[in-house]
C-alpha cells in the first residue's frame, strides 16, 4: 500500500471520526447513543493503527501530526476518570480514614509530640511565668484572650452573639481547615513548614491556656467549658493533618528502595487522604464551635458532652473499620 492509496482509503473514516468526536464533545456523556459509542471505539482503534502505520513508514510529519491529534481527541473522549460516588466518600470517612491513620501511627505520634510538647511547655510558661509568656505571645493578645473569657461573653444568650454564630462558623472553617491543609501541603518541602505550623500552634494555644488557668475562675471555667467539646475534633484533626505532612516529608527524605519521585508518589495519595480526613473532622469541629460550644447552658453539661465527644473521637480513630477477629 502506498501513501496515496492509504490516504484515499482511510480519509472517510478520519472525517467520520472527527465529526463524531466534535458532536460527542458538545453533548453530555449520559446522552451518548450506544451506536455512537460503538462507532467511536471502533474508529478510534483503527485510527490508532493508522497512526502506528504512518509512524513506522515515515509518511510525513504532518500526516502523523494530524493522526496524532485525532488519537488525542479520541483518547480524551474515551478515557475518563471513574465517577466518584457518595458511597465511596462515606466508606472513606467510616472505615478507610481511621484504618489509614492506624497504619500510619508513627507519623501521627511524631506529629502529636511536635504539637503536645510545645503546648504543655508553653502552658506551664503561661501559668507560672507570665512575664516570659508576654515576651513570646505579646501582652495585648494574652490580655485580650483573658478578658474575652472573663465576661461570660460567649455564653450570653443575647441576639448579638447568637446571630454571630454563623459568622464564627464560617471563620472557623476558613481558618482552622486552612491551617490544617497548609500543615499538610508544606510537608513536601521536607516537612519544615509542617513542624513550624504544629509547634507554633501548640505554643499559642498553650500560652493562652496557661494564662487563663493562672487567672482562675470564672474565666477558666468559661474557657475550658467552651473549648472542651470542639477541641476533641479540632486538636486531633490538626495533629492528623500534620501527620499527613510528615508522611509527605517521609516520602521526600526517606525514599528507601524507591527513587525519590516514586517514593513521593507512593506516599502522596495516603498523605492527602489523611489531610482530607482531617478536613472533614475540622468541619464537624467548626459546627460544634459555632453552634454548640457557645450555648448558654450550665458548664457541667458541656463538660459531660465534651468528655463524650473526646471518647467518641478516640473510639472512632482506634476502633472504626477494624476487622472482626477470626475465631
Amino acid at each position, binding site marked *: 500500500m502506498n501513501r496515496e492509496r492509504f490516504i484515499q482509503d482511510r480519509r472517510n473514516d478520519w472525517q467520520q471520526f472527527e465529526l463524531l468526536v466534535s458532536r460527542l464533545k458538545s453533548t453530555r456523556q449520559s446522552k451518548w447513543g450506544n451506536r455512537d459509542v460503538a462507532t467511536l471505539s471502533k474508529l478510534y482503534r483503527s485510527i*490508532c493503527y493508522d*497512526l502506528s502505520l504512518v509512524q513506522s513508514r515515515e509518511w510525513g510529519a504532518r500526516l502523523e501530526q494530524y493522526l496524532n*491529534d485525532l*488519537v*488525542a481527541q479520541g483518547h480524551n473522549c474515551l478515557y475518563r476518570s471513574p465517577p466518584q460516588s457518595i458511597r465511596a466518600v462515606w466508606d472513606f470517612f467510616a472505615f478507610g480514614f481511621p484504618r489509614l491513620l492506624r497504619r500510619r501511627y508513627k507519623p501521627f505520634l511524631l506529629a502529636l509530640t511536635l504539637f503536645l510538647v510545645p503546648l504543655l511547655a508553653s502552658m506551664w510558661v503561661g501559668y507560672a511565668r507570665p512575664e516570659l509568656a508576654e515576651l513570646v505571645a505579646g501582652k495585648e493578645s494574652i490580655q485580650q484572650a483573658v478578658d474575652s473569657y472573663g465576661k461570660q461573653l460567649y455564653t450570653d444568650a443575647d441576639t448579638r452573639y447568637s446571630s454571630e454564630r*454563623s459568622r464564627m462558623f*464560617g471563620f472557623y472553617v*476558613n481558618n482552622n481547615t*486552612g491551617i490544617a491543609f497548609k500543615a499538610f*501541603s508544606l510537608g513536601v518541602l521536607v516537612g519544615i513548614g509542617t513542624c513550624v505550623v504544629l509547634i507554633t500552634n501548640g505554643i499559642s494555644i498553650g500560652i493562652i491556656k496557661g494564662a487563663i488557668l493562672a487567672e482562675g475562675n470564672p474565666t477558666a471555667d468559661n474557657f475550658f467549658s467552651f473549648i472542651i467539646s470542639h477541641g476533641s475534633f479540632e486538636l486531633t484533626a490538626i495533629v492528623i493533618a500534620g501527620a499527613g505532612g510528615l508522611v509527605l516529608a517521609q516520602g521526600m527524605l526517606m525514599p528507601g528502595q524507591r527513587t525519590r519521585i516514586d517514593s513521593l508518589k507512593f506516599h502522596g495519595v495516603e498523605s492527602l487522604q489523611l489531610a482530607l480526613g482531617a478536613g472533614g473532622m475540622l468541619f464537624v469541629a467548626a459546627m460544634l464551635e459555632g453552634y454548640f460550644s457557645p450555648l448558654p447552658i450550665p458548664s457541667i453539661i458541656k463538660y459531660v458532652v465534651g468528655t463524650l465527644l473526646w471518647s467518641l473521637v478516640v473510639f472512632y480513630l482506634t476502633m472504626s473499620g477494624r476487622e472482626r477477629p477470626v475465631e
Partner: protein
Amino acid sequence: MSETYKRKVDTRVVVETPEGVDFQFVIAGPGTRAYAWFIDILLKFGILAVVGILLSVFGVFGDVGENFAQGFMLPAGFLMDWFYGSLFEFWMNGQTPGKRSAGLRVVRTNGTPIDLISAIGRNFLRTADMLPLFYTCGLISMLMTRRMQRLGDLVFDTMVIDERREWISRTGGLTANIEPLLRSECPRRYSVPERTLAVIERLFESDRMISDARREEIAKPLSEALRRRLGYQDPAPDPRNPHTFFRTQGFRHTQFILRVLKTFADDPGGSKATPQGSSDSKSAAARLENSRRVFAPLDESREVAKAAASFAPAAAPTSGDRA
C-alpha cells in the same frame, strides 16, 4: 510506559496508549500556565464579588442577616482557595476555565484523565509551590523535570499539556497568502500525485532547517518538472510595470511549488475553516522565519529529483546527474 520516550530537547513527551500506539503530548511551559493561572485568579475574584453582592441582600435583615452572609462568604472564600482548581479539573476533564482559555489540560503522566484525588492533591500542594514568592519552588521543580512538573504535579503524577494544535490542516499556515493555480493556467493536466505533495510538504517541514536560497535551489528541478506536467507558463512581464516581474523572480520556484501545494493538497480530514487559523499562520510564519535564519546543508535534492523523475521522464537528464 513512560520510559519509552525519545530523548529530545523539546517540550514533547511520547506516551504509549493502551492500544499500543505512541502518541505525543506537548508539555505546557511556565508562561502559558501563568497566563491560565491569571485568568483563573480573575475569575475567582469575579465569582466571589458576585456572591458577595448577592449576599449583601441579607443586609436588609440587620445584624442577623449580615452575620449569616459573612458566615457564607468565608467558607466560599475557603472553597475558592483550596478547591477551585481541583473541582474544575475533575468536572471539566483536567481543565479550569483559565486552562481552557489557554488551551491547556491536566492529565496523568500516562496520558489518562486526572482523577479526583490527584486533582485535589496537586492543587493543595500549590501552597508549597508558591513559596517563598511567585511560585519559586514550583518553577525550580519545573526546570528540573522533563515534563515541567511543579511539586504538586510530581507527587500526584500529573502533567499539564498544551492542546493548541499546531497543524490544523495539512497545508497549515504555509499557504495562507498564496494564490491557488487556476484551471486555465494549466493547459495540460490539473493533478499532482500525493507522493509529490508529500515531498513538497517535507521541504517545508519546520525541523528541516534550510535557508530560503537552498530551498529555492532544491525546489528548482521539482518546479520545472511540475511546470512541464501541468503545462504552466509564467505570465509574461506586465509591460506597464516590468519591475514586478523581476521582484517575483527571486524565489519563483519556491512560490510555484507552494501554489501547487495550495491547489492540490487538501486536508485528509477535510479542510474546514478553523477559528484558530489566524494564529496558526502566524506560528507557521514564525517557523519559516526561524528556518530562514539557520543554515543547515541537508541534501534534499536526491529525494526531490527522484520525485520529479517518477512522473516526468523528460526531466531525467537534469535529475540524472544529481541522483
